[in-house]
């Protein structure tokens, strides 16, 4: 039993909540906005809910992406930053690298298919374990938490996919992370210095 259909509704609600400007609103109004977005996800148009339509085009997002959206929504709701920029950049770097490893090769640019590693992921788990140990040692706890929860979700088989990759990364998260890195590179180029970057969000 998977809870896949809820992924679409949650994705729709969180994306709508994050995209609507909430500047100047009291936290109660922002909370109301989130509840309204969640309600909107269940509105049915032509036999399908808006959450279902979202799922049709985004497929089921990775567990990490959903958690990241929840994290960002929590920040917007509380009106304060819940983690320092180091944590944000830890997430961006880790998932940008995972996306880079996965997508170009899977789409046929090489004869290797890293996606198939996710069906019997023992070697992949070993690599991710080492990565997590490094993240723990360097205290990138947000990225560590996302990977660990995604791994737990894979163990519990909460998604329709049989592939470990589908719990870890999806194109939206990959695009977001690469967008943040490109923006950072652009900032470096414009400033011409090595200033410490601001939050990735």
């Amino acid at each position, binding site marked *: 039993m998977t809870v896949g259909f809820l992924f679409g509704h949650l994705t729709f609600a969180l994306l709508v909540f994050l995209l609507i400007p909430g500047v100047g609103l009291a936290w109660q109004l922002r909370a109301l906005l989130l509840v309204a977005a969640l309600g909107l996800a269940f509105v049915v148009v032509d036999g399908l809910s808006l959450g279902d339509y979202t799922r049709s085009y985004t497929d089921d997002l990775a567990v990490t992406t959903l958690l990241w959206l929840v994290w960002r929504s929590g920040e917007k709701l509380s009106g304060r930053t819940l983690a320092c920029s180091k944590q944000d950049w830890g997430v961006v770097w880790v998932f940008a690298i995972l996306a880079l490893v996965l997508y170009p090769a899977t789409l046929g640019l090489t004869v290797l298919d890293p996606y198939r590693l996710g069906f*019997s992921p023992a070697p992949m788990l070993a690599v991710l374990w080492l990565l997590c140990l490094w993240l723990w040692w360097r205290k990138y706890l947000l990225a560590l938490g996302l990977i660990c929860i995604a791994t737990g979700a894979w163990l519990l088989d909460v998604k329709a996919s049989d592939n470990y990759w589908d719990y870890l990364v999806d194109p939206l998260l990959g695009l977001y992370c690469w967008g943040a890195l490109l923006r950072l590179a652009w900032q470096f180029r414009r400033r011409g210095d090595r200033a410490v970057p601001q939050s990735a969000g």
Partner: protein
Amino acid sequence: MTTTPSTLQEGRLLPSVLLYRLCLPLLCLLFACGLWFSSTPRLAPFAIDHPRDPAALANDAEMLEPLFASDFASSTFQRHVHSSSIAALPDGGLISVWFAGSREGAADVDIRGARFDPASGDWGEEFKLISRATTERVLQRDIRKLGNPVIALAPDNRLWLFYVSVSLGGWAGSAINTIHSDDGGATWSQPRRLITSPFLNISTLVRNPPVFHADGSIGLPIYHEFLGKFAEYLYLCPEGRIIDKFRISRGSHSLQPTVVPLSEDSALALLRNSGVEHGKVLASFTSDRGQTWTDHVPVQPWNPNSAVAAISEGDGDILVVLNDLEDGRFRLTLYHTDASLKDWRKVSVLDEGPLPQEWVTEELFRRELQDSYTAVAEAEEETPAKLQALVQSAEKRGCRGGQRCTFKFEYPTLIRAPNGFFHLVYSWNNTLIKHVVFNSAWVEQQR
């Protein structure tokens, strides 16, 4: 009692340090569990078809006499029909499926089917097997169109149907869905989507029937169409969950693989060549049950970027059905070749337009269409009104500007039933699904 700022800080710090340290054993436990439950599958040998005992076949008068017959599996003319598939049923009958609608890719396209009754020797009325609306409702996703149904009977007598659906864009946005039946196609399970791609699960299609491994696992030849065009081999457990996936080819011009097991460990894949220049069918081999495949190489017959069907005749002999043309799909031919694919021999032209060229006049198209239909259809079906409806429907799909028309005999699927007969279905001018049956004696007679 008053609390100083320093003790407050320590009070906060202590749990967070403990929590941080606790992370390490939890992290190790989590990944240890992951490694424990992550098994590395071993692919079972290919299940080689053994159509009845060869000795029994040799004594069977039905098999000794050359047999070649044809009829139509579909029974209406109004819809655009395409991409048929066929499976032998446990009761000796057949079931064929195809997609049909106002045009390819239209929202009204359904997956339709018909059953062949071995007692009467006739195809029954066609029926709707699954619709876009049903798929949409069950999968809870917006579905724009359906296509490419593929049907096969597993060794455990479970009937599998795979078909593609598109939510966004063209066929490159396809995903594969599956339903199955445990009662020979009388009732079917709800549709289930296979997750085969990390890129929004788009761009995986199916066209040719699966092969089976000795433990009942399913080897489904699939292909990818977004950015690159390449073939893959999807390995599923007998219950239909994905176990693994292997690349058959790479690049941007090979698709629609058809897999022919040659022995318990080896198999051949023939691939449609969609290269810009007209080309030949591509071939690739595996000797490790589908895990790795050789670089694809072109084989002898011409093929104008159209679908190919193939099956083993036993003893290394392979039968291949394809459009052996440089352009067009107005001729469909049965070839015989050996396992090395070096010796190709034309067995018979199965269907052909009246001229050795793609385009014919409307008048010739009408006349030839009626003649070839009446040569195949039952005599009692040949009413003038029916023939008129057939011509009108075929003209809508085969003629341009009312002047130039082309015949299309395409998208073949070839199987061998347990009784040893070969069954072929293909699109007949996108108006009907034609069924051809023959046996090895007939193939031998053509030599």
